[in-house]
């Protein structure tokens, strides 16, 4: 029944192409950085090519299982790989002018980003808890280093250390959860968790809760969120653009996979209550604390905590349409949140200092393009109709009401109202105050223009014509075996 782990067929290798090209490109960049420094200006192009190739392989690969059922290629992994790949591309495009501005054009930035992205793909595609865990660790190790990328800057070192210590702690939770599930089911395969006797088993429940803690940490879901503001603040902004979107999506997909396997007959109410409580806490805490933030990166960190609360509503709802809502939400989140960080990267001059919102005063009229895109991203995050953000919330709240979870929907909507307070505060500073800096921000690089333009176009396109995305997400959600 179970073939040996080591028999690898051509199918298995073909299925691993998306990851292989990322790994190879990362290694190549590190080698070139050491031995051919003149190639540095091609690193961004090379990384983009690797990401594009990886997406292409992922989309072109025939659907099915590989590595003896441990690895999935499906509409779900295609959709998830697409938004994660888009995030990585945004991060690379932002990084190119950003690293030049700070004078730190180093190969390891791109290499670590690519390897981190590889980890995300492993998490999204793994059908074996150990594969998922290896993906999680690959991602985490890459980003621990990226958090401390500015070695001479105390805030960056602090970010790296904080992220590492708390991250390691969270990984231990995850691993312990996996161990408990393994102990009960006798295997680390996710599919094996669908044995009918496991759903009601208390040890399995504890294992699942531990996974919820571990992956909740990666999602910066309250109360496991405390690292996010500090890490975002110290980490280079392009890396934050990636970290704040793709790993969170991957974590949620893992949770969905595991829970869908265990709860074939529907999610028990105790569990739903626990997840709903996390969602409510995360939304409310994120939004209320964000109101008090003065630093834009911290503000966006708390906004991210709140957004993970909204999307966790779709986990509590639990079902095919809710999973589709999650996928839609993350596509929306890429253009809105990664776009916001891209604009932040373009609008601030000095990366060695904090990023107070007040410094943006008057930029709306001085650098209209970057400010306009930032404002659009913020309106999208606030969920104003005709932007992508509205579509994300629309499907989540629709799923909640369909399931009869009215209270969650109402709390979510009230939270949206609170969030408008701080998003509008940034817009107000951008457009309705006189500039405080004598000089405007540096002129936009071509890469900045491209990425900001793409995000703005994405926000409007998804906001006005969401039908295609919803179809894609629904097809993707079919891939997960929900119970009858």
């Amino acid at each position, binding site marked *: 029944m179970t073939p040996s782990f080591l028999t690898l067929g051509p199918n298995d290798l073909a299925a691993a192409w998306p990851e292989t090209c990322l790994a190879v490109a990362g290694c190549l960049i590190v080698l070139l950085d050491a031995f051919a420094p003149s190639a540095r200006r091609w690193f961004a192009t090379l990384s983009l090519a690797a990401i594009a190739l990886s997406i292409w392989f992922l989309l072109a690969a025939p659907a099915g299982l590989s590595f003896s059922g441990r690895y999935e290629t499906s509409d779900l992994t295609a959709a998830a790989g697409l938004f994660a790949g888009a995030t990585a591309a945004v991060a690379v495009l932002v990084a190119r002018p950003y690293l030049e501005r700070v004078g730190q054009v180093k190969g390891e930035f791109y290499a670590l980003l690519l390897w981190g992205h590889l980890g995300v793909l492993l998490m999204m595609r793994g059908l074996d808890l150990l594969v998922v865990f290896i993906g999680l660790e690959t991602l985490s190790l890459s980003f621990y280093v990226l958090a401390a990328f500015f070695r001479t800057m105390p805030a960056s070192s602090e970010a790296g250390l904080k992220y590492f210590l708390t991250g390691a702690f969270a990984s231990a939770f995850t691993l312990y959860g996996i161990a408990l599930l393994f102990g009960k089911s006798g295997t680390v395969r996710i599919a094996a968790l669908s044995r009918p006797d496991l759903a009601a088993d208390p040890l399995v429940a504890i294992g699942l809760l531990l996974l919820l803690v571990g992956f909740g940490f990666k999602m910066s879901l309250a109360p496991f969120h405390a690292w996010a503001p500090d890490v975002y603040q110290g980490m280079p902004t392009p890396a934050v653009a990636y970290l704040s979107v793709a790993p969170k999506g991957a974590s949620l997909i893992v949770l969905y996979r595991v829970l869908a396997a265990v709860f074939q007959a529907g999610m028990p109410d105790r569990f739903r209550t626990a997840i709903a409580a996390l969602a409510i806490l995360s939304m409310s805490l994120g939004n209320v604390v964000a109101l008090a933030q003065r630093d834009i990166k911290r503000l966006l960190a708390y906004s991210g905590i709140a957004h993970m609360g909204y999307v966790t509503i779709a986990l509590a709802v639990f079902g095919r349409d809710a999973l589709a809502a999650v996928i839609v939400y993350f596509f929306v989140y890429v253009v809105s949140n990664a776009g916001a960080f891209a604009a932040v990267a373009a609008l601030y001059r000095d990366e060695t200092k904090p990023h107070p919102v007040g410094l943006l005063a008057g930029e709306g*009229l001085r650098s*209209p393009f970057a400010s306009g895109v930032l404002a659009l991203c913020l*309106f999208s995050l606030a969920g*104003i*109709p*005709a932007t992508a953000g*509205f579509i994300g919330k*629309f499907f989540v*709240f*629709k799923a909640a*009401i*369909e399931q009869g979870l*009215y209270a969650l*929907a*109402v709390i979510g*909507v*009230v939270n*949206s*109202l609170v969030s*408008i*307070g701080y998003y*509008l505060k940034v817009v*107000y500073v951008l*457009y*309705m105050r006189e500039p405080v800096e004598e000089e405007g921000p540096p002129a936009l690089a071509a890469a900045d223009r491209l990425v900001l333009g793409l995000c703005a176009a994405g926000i409007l396109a998804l906001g006005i014509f*969401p*039908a295609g995305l*919803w*179809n894609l997400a*629904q097809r993707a959600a079919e891939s997960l075996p929900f119970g009858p």
Partner: protein
Amino acid sequence: MTGATGIVAVLESRLLTILVFLPSAAAALLLLFPRSRTREAKIFAIGASVVELALALPLWSRFDLHSGGFQFTETATWIPALGISYSIGMDGISLLLVLLTVLLTPVSLLFSFDHVEKSARAFSIAFLVLETGMIGSLLALDLALFYVFWEVMLVPMYFIIGIWGGGRRIYAAMKFFLFTMAGSLLMFLAILYLAIRHRAVTGRWSFLLSDLVTLSFPTMAIQTLLFAAFALAFAIKVPVFPLHTWLPDAHTEAPTAGSIILAGVLLKLGIYGYLRFALPLFPDAAMRYAPWLGVLGIIGVIYGAFVAYAQKDMKRLVAYSSVSHLGLIVVGIGAFTSAAVTGSVLQMINHGLSTGALFLLVGVLYERTHTREIADYGGIAGVAPVTTALFLVATFSSIGLPGLNGFVGEFLILLGTWTSVHRWWAVAAATGVILSAIYMLSLVQRVFWNPLTREENRRLPDIRASEAIGALALVAVMVWIGVRPNDFLDRIRPSVEQVRQSVATRKVAATLSRPSRAERGTPRESGSVRQ
């Protein structure tokens, strides 16, 4: 030749879509203008809004007077998986409000031509996007589509108040945004609930108004909650007392053009939404709570009048007069007789014209003196006779002098209310009409007649052509409605009848299909249903 007729044919069959999106297309083109060419940008924006007006005017004559239903309808799929469609159409109520919108937009832009200097290109863009939002909201027949347009209006208005407004503009803009958003978010959930219930009942997704009005609700409590969510959103927009506090701030701080549109169109959308959506969707709840609406309307009429009388700031005075006048419209809707509702709809147009003109003329004075304090004026009549004359006409229209438009609307509302079951409302509301004469005439007295006290007012230049054209256009329509009200009433009445009919038949149907009146009688039972 055939090419030209082909274009005309497309124009005719897609006229409403063109009306909705022409302004935002113009706004998108404006983005391409260099930022330094402010003059050209302004002219382009005015041109676009005038073309919009020219395109909309044929609707007046093409409109079929004998139909109360929706005309010029267009439908296209939008999100087929959820049955969300791009479905638009117009009845008599929306016809007049659309015409009001396309009239007030060029008037506002024309007024701003000389008075908005700071990033005039962005100002024009905001205005044109706003126009798309307003017309879209007035034409949408799909609730999801309506909600999108409804919210799209917020963002440009936020910028118009926040960037080009007066001293406390930030506070006013924020308050405007948060108040309006607070109401509409709950309406959003209610819309979702309706669509999901429609699917549960029929097995088919739909957000179409015509589908959702056929729904019945499991309990009266649910219907009441849903109605409350809709009514709150609309009541904040109107605004109905006690939700009106954002209005004086927004009006006072907004630039003149913003005030004209805010008072002229945005407030009307609250009443419009109530008539178009809340009433037909939730007839039982709406009828049960209509007395509350009427009472709140009366409080608004009298409270608004008294507070207006106490104002020292001209713009704030006109803003509170809006609270009072909108209150009267709400009373008419609450009374729900044919005459009262028809009068209310006409009064929406009237108020848009008269208050739009008043804000414009207050703006004329403000741009010359940079003060809105009533005490800083006096004796202007001799210095600026044309401004004075126009202001007088707008005042007379606002207080309902016979021969002008305001009289027809107010008379119909009071008559219709008197013949309804709530006879005493008419008495109370009539005092508001009298009060409005007092505070408006005292404003005119203090600003234009009293002795000229301030030396610098002696050289006050009179109204300019770019300002006067708009005011004259508004005055012309005021006279038209005053002299030939039936031109307008004939277009309103069939649609109002349609709304009243649908409420009446659905109420009967709901009462018949209900097994018993138990849930109305015993609260315990409705409680157990909820569990």
